[in-house]
């Protein structure tokens, strides 16, 4: 922001003129974007008929509010943060506060609509938009203006950062990320272990955590492929599907239990990884991404169409549920056999199986984590990272790029296969619907948001990305909007991921570690 102050070498154009020009442009943009998408809303009438309502008032407010914000932004950019600070602050307090009151009012009053009549939203505060959540979002936008203004004020007070200062700042942030992961990792692990026994734990929480841990495991598995080996895989969910269907078929057709079919499911997924990987891995970057995307879809479409084997769109039902190493969790065990609660002399509870599932996925995820950390320090792990950095140099050093990539691909696929088996045993039902592209995208988002290569970061991102939509269920309609907003905010705040830092796999711990002088004064 402040850099523009320096380059403002053309005094011919006053700030006011620039502001008005940009405001008009913004108003035009808002109009173009909103006219069709916001302006008309189709609604189903009674009797199947579609009709539409117009919402021109909302567009009008948008055309007024957004350019106003733009004007404040322009002033701020030219070193005058006060208007943005005051205007943004007032708008934030009014819009966000008003929206909050309106929502609270709704929540408190709607249940008693029977007594008060149609009083929804009648908090008495006049807000520009009909829906208080939209007002709230505008309020947050105003808050962003205030933050920008505060930043500008701080920068003008301290001067502009030099390159060295910026470098130092980045180094500090990397050290912070490192320290944070060191503390956060064990803390998260301890929390995960004791979570089911904390007083506020309940069935919903444990099931949500089980879901999150599945994605943590998938994220860590994909991290080997994307984070370490640098292969952009957009079809990762295909291997997850192979694992899930492997368990489904092995258990329903051959009567294998979970632990018996787990290695087989992993092997099948790894096999698919090699088969799909072999022709594809010669491709680089974007091309690889497109082809893996295609493979992901191919697997899903095969699952839909191969009726005889996969059950088509109906999937496979009646998959045997998780057992405690062969001992079922049934309420009434069959004649002459034990059930989990009779074996341990416990009162029957449906929580037993849920808790066991939770600890199984926790264990699987930890194995994945341990394997990744260990492999990174092996020659193969270093070769993966080297391939990510420069494939040509790798080839010149005698590293076989195809084999090295294939191992990463197969290993990632195997871990996805394990996770898929777990998914199938938890759901007791698999269908192609669970393995759509969006799943691949979410797993990839977890890896990227977490900070590629950072184990703790990936875990945190999984908690955010999978846990947040669950929490945000309250927002119903705006759930995905809020989800997107959080992702954008993370990328703005930490463009390289939540905890981006890379620890060398081998340290000498000798010497100063200082930046050597230019011109090789060291020899």
């Amino acid at each position, binding site marked *: 922001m402040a850099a523009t102050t320096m380059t403002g070498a053309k005094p011919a154009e006053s700030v006011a003129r620039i502001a008005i020009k940009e405001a008009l442009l913004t108003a035009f943009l808002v109009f173009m974007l909103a006219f069709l998408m916001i302006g008309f809303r189709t609604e189903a009438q009674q009797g199947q008929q579609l009709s539409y309502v117009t919402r021109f008032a909302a567009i009008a407010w948008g055309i007024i509010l957004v350019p106003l914000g733009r004007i404040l932004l322009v002033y701020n950019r030219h070193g005058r943060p006060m208007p943005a600070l005051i205007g943004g602050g007032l708008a934030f307090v009014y819009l966000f506060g008003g929206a909050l009151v309106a929502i609270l009012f709704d929540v408190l009053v709607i249940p008693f609509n029977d007594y008060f009549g149609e009083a929804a939203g009648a908090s008495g505060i006049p807000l520009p938009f009909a829906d208080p959540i939209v007002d709230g979002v505008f309020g947050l936008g105003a808050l962003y203006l205030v933050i920008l203004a505060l930043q500008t004020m701080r920068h003008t007070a301290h001067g502009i950062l030099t390159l060295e200062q910026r470098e130092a700042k980045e180094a500090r942030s990397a050290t912070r990320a490192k320290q944070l992961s060191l503390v956060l990792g064990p803390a998260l692990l301890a929390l995960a272990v004791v979570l089911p026994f904390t007083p506020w734990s309940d069935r919903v929480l444990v099931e949500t955590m089980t879901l999150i841990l599945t994605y943590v495991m998938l994220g860590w598995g994909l991290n080997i492929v994307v984070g370490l080996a640098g292969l952009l895989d957009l079809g990762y969910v295909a291997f997850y599907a192979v694992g899930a269907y492997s368990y489904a078929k092995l258990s329903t057709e051959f009567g294998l239990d979970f632990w018996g079919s787990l290695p087989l499911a992993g092997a099948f997924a790894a096999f698919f990884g090699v088969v799909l990987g072999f022709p594809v891995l010669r491709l680089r970057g974007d091309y690889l991404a497109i082809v893996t995307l295609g493979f992901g879809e191919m697997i899903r479409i095969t699952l839909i169409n191969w009726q005889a084997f996969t059950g088509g769109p109906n999937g496979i039902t009646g998959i045997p549920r998780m057992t405690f190493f062969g001992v079922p969790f049934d309420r009434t065990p069959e004649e002459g056999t034990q059930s989990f609660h009779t074996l341990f002399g416990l009162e029957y509870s449906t929580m037993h199986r849920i808790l066991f599932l939770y600890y199984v996925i926790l264990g699987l995820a930890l194995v994945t984590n341990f394997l990744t950390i260990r*492999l990174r320090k092996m*020659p193969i792990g270093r070769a993966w990272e080297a391939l990510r*950095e420069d494939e040509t140099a790798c080839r010149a050093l005698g590293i076989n790029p195809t084999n090295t990539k294939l191992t990463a691909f197969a290993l990632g696929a195997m871990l996805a296969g394990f996770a898929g088996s777990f998914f199938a045993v938890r759901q007791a039902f698999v269908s192609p619907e669970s393995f759509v592209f969006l799943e691949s995208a979410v797993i990839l988002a977890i890896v990227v948001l977490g900070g590629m290569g950072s184990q703790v970061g990936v875990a945190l991102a999984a908690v955010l990305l999978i846990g947040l939509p669950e929490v945000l269920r309250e927002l119903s309609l705006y759930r995905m909007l809020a989800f997107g907003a959080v992702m954008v905010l993370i990328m703005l705040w930490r463009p390289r991921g939540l905890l981006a830092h890379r620890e*060398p796999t081998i*340290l000498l711990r000798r010497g100063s570690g200082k930046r050597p002088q230019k*011109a*090789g004064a060291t020899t």
Partner: protein
Amino acid sequence: MSVTAAAMAEPDHTSLLKVTHLTMRFGGLVAIDDVSFVARQREITGIIGPNGAGKTTLFNCITGFYKPTVGRLELFRDGKVAYLLEQMEGYAIGQKARVARTFQNIRLFAGMSVLENLMVAQHNKLMLASGYTIFGVLGLPAYRKAERAAQEKAVHWLERVGLIDFADMSAGNLPYGAQRRLEIARAMCTDPTLLCLDEPAAGLNPRESAELNQLLLSIRDEYGIGVLLIEHDMSVVMGISDHIIVLDYGKKISDGTPAEVRNDPAVIRAYLGEEEEE
């Protein structure tokens, strides 16, 4: 082409690489046109020529990045032909024939530490020692010993090129000259029999150039390997080469000792015919 006579002589026991009738065509463009020469062990063979003469293309053929259109590339070991490089897969030339190279535009693993760069260079040896990762993951002592040996070798080379104090720094943060030295150290960590250096002195100041000369001479003398050297910096080429090959428009125009090449009328014509060379 009288100059080719010397090079076409039968290779003696010190021959390391024999290039015969090498031709590389890209569509209609002939980048290398029927080039033959011999590079010997314990010798630095300089390859010079004006821009676009085909020097880097020659390197790319030798190190397997290009498949030559015509020609034979024989690598000798103990006086016998051990490998036909033109028939080998790119990475195998590094792995089996042990031809190492550096790049004109430095290609380090910038995000990895200096020490890690040298560990990656010893990948194949470590991969075997780790039982293709299985013993390594289990933490068997044989692998740990191999890794320690690899680290010692890396430390040795870091000391040689004066980067030992920066071992744990990421390679991309090194200054330019240090990156050039690290790339040579990385190539040496692969235990090469032939080291191909593509303009190692580019971008170095005179003092760094002089240090580079010392390094290359000591590599030649202590390790007894052959060095192929592309260079524009005449003080480097003329100062340390035992033998120089001059290319122009893909053709070999001269071949001999530095003194012979310097007085060769064909070379003088090629260089003076060009505008600014350096």
